[in-house]
């Protein structure tokens, strides 16, 4: 079993805590002049996304988590699992709804996304920062309105709902920032 000493802690390191794989977000050494040193860390639970603060006595060792991020292509959903494929090895993995979470609404078949694997099993799915999707439903476009602050809701082919400017029509293809869920612009014809 691989372990890390607190002296090796750095952000991005994957460790086991409370039975779950976690990622170190921030690590700070605190050391009162002549006394016991501590590592004060913020850790993100990679399964729940929750961030907690924890303090380790300096020199403690912590179990390493076998976690890796890998880019995979989204294939299809079968009702229970979302299936992904490594486009180099053609290896496939199936992620459940807990692992896919909110990412589901951005997943379009054949798009690439980042899968976090823990002991080979997907625990989270992160879509690309920008996705290009078609609008399947929205109120009719209002011509001439190019810069209204208001906007209107539009449903995308993957089910996500984003606010778009009033002039956008059904069938148009737009670019969306998945981190904020915001409309970026019309996708250029390619």
């Amino acid at each position: 079993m691989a372990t890390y000493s607190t002296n090796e802690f750095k952000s991005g390191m994957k460790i086991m805590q409370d039975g779950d794989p976690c990622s170190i977000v921030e690590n700070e050494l605190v050391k009162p002049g002549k006394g016991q040193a501590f590592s004060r860390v913020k850790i993100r639970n990679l399964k729940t996304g929750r961030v907690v603060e924890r303090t380790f006595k300096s020199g403690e060792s912590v179990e390493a988590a076998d976690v890796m991020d890998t880019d995979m292509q989204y294939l299809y959903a079968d009702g229970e699992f979302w299936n992904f494929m490594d486009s180099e090895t053609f290896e496939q993995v199936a992620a459940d709804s807990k692992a896919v979470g909110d990412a589901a609404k951005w997943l379009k078949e054949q798009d690439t996304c980042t899968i976090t694997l823990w002991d080979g099993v997907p625990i989270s799915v992160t879509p690309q920062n920008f996705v290009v999707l078609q609008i399947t439903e929205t109120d009719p476009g209002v011509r001439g309105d190019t810069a209204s602050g208001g906007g209107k809701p539009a449903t995308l082919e993957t089910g996500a709902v984003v606010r778009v400017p009033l002039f956008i029509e059904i069938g148009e293809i737009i670019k969306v920032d998945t981190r904020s869920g915001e409309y970026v612009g019309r996708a250029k014809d390619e």
Partner: protein
Amino acid sequence: MLEVETPVFSKSGNTDPFIQSLTANFSISADREEIYYAQTSPEFAMKRLLANGSDSIYQICKVFRVGEMGRRHNPEFSMLEWYRIGLSYHELMNEISELLKVLGVSDHSQRMSYKDLFYQYLKIDLCNVSVDHLKNCAAKSKIDVIGLDDNFDDWLNLLLSHLIEPQLGIEAPLFVYDYPASQAALANIREEAYPIAERFELYLNGIELANGYQELTTGEFYKKRFYLENEKRLSRNMNKISVQNNVLEDLQKGLPFCSGVALGLDRLLMHLCNASEIKDVLTFDFLNS
């Protein structure tokens, strides 16, 4: 005051249970391994000079500590250390205060005893408190800590570093003085109902800047302190550090009445430059050295 320069490497290491020395292998031949310690402060060498009759002395040098790396720590850093013969530790605090004035850091400083500090910030009476009470206090403040056993000083240090230190020395530099005897290191201990180590630390903007003592003058006490510190090291599964006879023999002669302080120059520089990380005041930090 005389400037001195003492050796960086010595066969005697620092016995402090919370400081880890960097070692160098000075092997003349493959079967004769000789381990030398890089200084974690020039304390031993400067005290040897004092024990041998030197007057007040100061030194600026690089010191080395294994594992200390972070926003405010670099494993090698610069230290200004000085000893004033005839000065009490409170008088030495006055002198440091003057230095801070000259440097334009602040024209006044404050002082508070360690005991008052815990009472003021955490309403803890150190004369009458159990480890369980300290644990409760940590839990109430939502400190989620891994790896601490029932060591009283470790819990004090946890509370101090997490809840108190960040608030110290904001308005003006603050000297915290008179530590529990169990945290004496090499400071003089004043025997009272609640024995006190005549030690102080200087805080500036939540950061520890200096550590000083009313020095232990009785020669034979040094050997005892080293022994006790090594016992602490062993109980924490750390290696024993040897202090060689040449050092012990000098310290055995005893020190004149004096006070000494070590001040972290990089951190002082951080304050003067308004830098938030120690690497901002270094040419190349340890990871990039």
